[in-house]
Each structure stands twice: as C-alpha cells, then as structure tokens.
C-alpha cells in the first residue's frame, strides 16, 4: 500500500468545543438551580429518589465529559471507577462505621489514585485501543469483586446492604429528601469546580491535547501529566458519584456495576452533548427515564424501542442537547 497512507494528518476524534460554550449563562443556571431546589418539595418520595439518581448519574456523566469532551480520551471503563467509589463508601460505612459524608471524599481520593494509575499504561493507547483497555477494566472489576480474598469486606457475590442516613440536626424532612439535598449540594460543588477546572490553565492544557496532541506538546504542555491527570480527576468524580449511588440505592453488589453501566454513561454523554457540561444532566435523564418509557411502550420489544428512540435523538440532535440550546439562541438573535 502507498506510503501516503502511513502519514495522515492527525484526525480529531473529539470535536473542538471552545470552553466558552461548555457552560450555561448565569441566568439560565440560576433558573435550573431554582427548579432543582424547589421541585422535590412537591413530589412523592419515589420521584425524589429518581431525582437523586439523576444527580448522581449526572455527576458520573460529567466526569466522563471532562475526560472525553475535555481531554479527548475515550473511556468505556467508568463503571469500574463508579464501583470502586461505591464499594469504598459501603465498606467504610458498614465495616468501619465511618460517617457517610466522610466516606465520599475518601472514595474520591481512592478513585483519583486508581484513575491516575490506570492513566499511566493508557497513555500509550488512543482511540479504539484505549476503548478496549478501559472496556477490559470494566469487565474485570465485577469479577474481581466476587473473588474470595475480599469477601470479608465486600460480601462477595451477595454484596453489602448500606443504611440510609437520617437528616442531621433533627431537621423535619424525610431521609429521601435529605439525601436529595445532600447530593444536590455535592453536585453543585463539583459542577462549579469542574467549570473552573476547564477554565484554568489545566483545563486549557486538556483542550489543547484534545485538539492536537503534537501541537500541544510543542507548546510545552506536559502531555503525559495532563492526560493521566484527566483520568484521575474523571475517576475521582465518578468515585464520588458511585459513593452517593451506594447510599441512595442502599445496596452494592458486583453485578450492579457491569459494562452495561459504562455503556449507559457513555450514551448519556453523547445524548447530553460531548464537551457540554450542563448536558450531563440531560444525558443522565435520558439514561434513567428512556428505558422506562421504552418498557412502557412495549414490554417484549423494549430494547428495540430504546434503540429507535436513541436513533431519533441522534438524528435530530447529532451534537446532543447542546444543539437544542443553539437552536434557541439562533431564534433569539
């Protein structure tokens, strides 16, 4: 085959999204925030639970978005970091009686470590090769959790039951509502931190690597450092989400964190818009509610209905929920 084939201009795997359009305006943010704060007061406990899960998956999708939309690296292994976070929280709470709020930063740090370490060998891989490596991680982890060596801590195949915390200071609200506000506070904190991260020097380094790795390294960006850092940060946030998820679901078991979860998170990112952080919540809503809707339309064909809905979404908005916002903005001007 010709020599020309061997030399290609580095294709951009992930679209270049300027950091300006990665976030929402202040006005819109406040409206969304107000809705998130007020809405749960008026709904039933089950819906509050679903909204909590929405925030938690939103965090996990956000984490993937920082990795893929920010630094241009794929990952099908987010479920592994989610599981590590969930198990860290569950084991600390149930075996060592640590306060639930304290377990979350620990889960974050542990996952940051795992992510950073995993980022080292992953440095040599990109594109589909990286996808395969992260995929391997996602398939391996549930099997490792089932192993006998850790059974004393993790409960093996059976998993662990996690107790749901009460509202502190004798607040007269239900456990679900408290957990929702607790998750909301954490989500907002992490969201603001992520937005600032992407606006910072490190964020610019991520984006430079995403847009053109060679040019970035020529400009003095430490590619290896920032790529592994992106993995670490993403894993850390996913870990916090996993920890929150364990508290909300009140149960951890190896089979809850299979590759299906990683694929869901990936779909959430695509539907929400790669590189658009507020889209993470939209994506999370898609992966939580659309399977239920599909099941409602047809029990036997729920998979097919889900597939068709997914196709509709990617035809109508190929760049995810960001396209809707763009449309609205164009109308206005």
């Amino acid at each position: 085959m010709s020599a020309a084939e061997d030399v290609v201009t580095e294709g951009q795997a992930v679209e270049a999204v300027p950091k300006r359009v990665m976030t929402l305006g202040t006005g819109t943010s406040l409206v969304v925030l107000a809705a998130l704060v007020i809405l749960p007061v008026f709904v039933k406990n089950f819906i509050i639970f679903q909204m909590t899960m929405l925030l938690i998956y939103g965090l996990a999708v956000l984490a993937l978005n920082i990795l893929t939309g920010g630094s241009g690296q794929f990952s099908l292994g987010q479920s592994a970091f989610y599981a590590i976070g969930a198990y860290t929280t569950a084991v600390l709470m149930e075996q060592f009686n640590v306060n639930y709020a304290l377990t979350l930063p620990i889960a974050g740090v542990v996952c940051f470590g795992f992510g950073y370490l995993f980022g080292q060998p992953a440095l040599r891989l990109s594109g589909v090769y990286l996808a395969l490596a992260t995929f391997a991680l996602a398939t391996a982890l549930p099997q490792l959790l089932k192993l006998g060596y850790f059974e004393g801590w993790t409960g093996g195949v059976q998993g662990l039951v996690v107790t749901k915390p009460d509202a502190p200071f004798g607040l007269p609200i239900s456990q679900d509502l408290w957990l929702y506000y607790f998750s909301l506070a954490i989500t907002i904190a992490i969201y603001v931190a992520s937005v600032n991260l992407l606006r910072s020097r490190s964020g610019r380094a991520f984006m430079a690597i995403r847009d053109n790795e060679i040019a970035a390294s020529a400009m003095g960006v430490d590619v290896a450092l920032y790529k592994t850092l992106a993995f670490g940060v993403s894993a850390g946030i996913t870990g916090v989400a996993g920890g929150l998820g364990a508290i909300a679901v009140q149960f951890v078991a190896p089979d809850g964190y299979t590759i299906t979860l990683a694929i869901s998170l990936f779909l959430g990112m695509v539907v929400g818009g790669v590189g658009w952080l507020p889209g993470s919540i939209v994506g999370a809503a898609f992966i939580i509610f659309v399977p239920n809707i599909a099941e409602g339309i047809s029990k036997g064909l729920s998979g097919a209905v889900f597939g068709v809905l997914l196709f509709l979404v990617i035809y109508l908005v190929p760049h995810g929920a960001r396209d809707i916002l763009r449309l609205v903005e164009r109308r206005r001007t």
Partner: protein
Amino acid sequence: MELFTNQVLAGIATGAIYACMALAVVMIYQAIDHLNFAQGEMAMFATFISWQLMQWGVPYWGAFVITLALSFVGGIAIERILFKPLAKAPVLTNVAGFIALFAIINSSAGLIWDFTIKQYPTPFGSAPLLGSQLISTHQAGMIGVTVLLLLGLYFFFQYTRIGLAMRAAASVPESARLVGINTSWMVALGWGMATAIGSIAGMLVAPVVFLEPNMMGGVLIYGFAAAVLGGLSSPLGAVTGGFLVGIFENLVGTYIPGVGNELKLPIALALIISVLVVKPAGLFGRPIVKRV
C-alpha cells in the same frame, strides 16, 4: 507436554471462531474507520434467518448462500438508511448509533425467535478429527473456511479494481473522490461485505455455542480483542490475533490456578493490553505517523 499441545490445539479450535469474527470486524473497520458494536448481533440475526430457512426445508448450502446474499443486501441497506445520514456527525454519535442498532436487533430477534436455545446443524459433521478428542471435524472445517476467506479477501483487495477503490476510499477519501471513486458507495459495499462475512462467522459459530439471541456477546468481545491485538489495519493480523486469543484463553484457564470461567476473559484482555502497551498498533498493524 502432552497437556500443553492438547490445550494449544483446543485453543486453535476456539480461536477459529474469534478469527472469523475478527475478520468481519477488520473488514468494516477498513471501510468505515469505526468499530461496529452491532456486528455480532447482525451475524446472530443472519444465522437465525438461515435457521428459519432450514426449518422451511431449504438444504444447508442453499440456506447458506441465500443468507449470505440477504446479509450483503441487508448490510448495504442498514448503511444507506441508518448510517449515511450520520456520516457527518461526530464519531461518538456514530458509536451511539451502533449501540442503538445492537439493542434493536437483539430485542427483535428475541421477539421473533424467542430466547430458547436452538440446535444448529454443521455441514462438516462433529466426529473427532483424526482420532484427536480435542478438535472435531467441524472445528477443522471452521479453520479451513476462515483461511479460505482470508485468502479470498487478500486477492480481492490486492488484485481487483474494486478492492483497490475500496482501499483508496478508506485511507484517503478526498483524493479518492478526486480520481472518480464513489466513496459513499464504497462504504456501503464495505458494510455489505462485512455483514456477509459476519454471517459466515455466525453460521460457523452457531453449532458450537448454540443459537440464541445473545450468542454473539462473548464471541464479539473476543473478536474485537483479536482484531485489536492483530492490528486493525490487517486482515492477516486479525486472523492471527483470533488464534492467539483462543490459545491464550485456554492456557490461562489450564495453568493459572483458581482461574474459573469468570476470570478467563479479564486475564485474556489484560494480556492483550500488555501486548498493546508494547506495540500500540497491534502485532501486524502499521504504526500511523502523525503530523500536525
């Protein structure tokens, strides 16, 4: 020592399945530059069609040829209807499309033919080959078909005009268009061929893993792994990768104590990744030189 040779032989036998699937994966990767996650499901659906034809009284080879033709047309139709509109969409959107296709095909097959396990006939018979218990005539036949396919593809791509046009369209689409190649149809042709090869893989695998809507799940993962290990740009690499993965998997299961069926896959994948860390473009893949 005898245990070792036996395990290697058994590994080659399972490897033939992976090799076949990996070949289909590489084919479509050559044509469209994406890994098609729905490939296994497309193969499964084709296998069900051939099974249905046989239920209606069509002889094996008749069903085989009809299925091949239907898969070829079906692959082209899927590309034209579902994926051509996404040609300009970002890569990740395309991947989401593959996942959607996976869900649609899997669930439809489940509804049409339900989830019970079905026997699937083999044209090669299942007697032990040359008195060896480890490799049956079916598995030998499977290896033979894979090798034949590989040779056929090699000649097609290397010595025919249309093969050359397909390669050109995949590697430098802009220049290919300038010399008058209809790149859009080359992609569709790639889909058709990959689907047809996938259906052969499905029909060869079905007698071993039995026919049911989820039969390709595991096979596809190993097929991907094999394709990546061999190098996604090389059909020969894909086939070699397939056999290597089969052997790896068997040896790991035999010699590392405490490795049950559950841990075979993670360990095989870990080995593959260690290989990739040393040779990032796969064993036979050409490294791509990047420029700014």
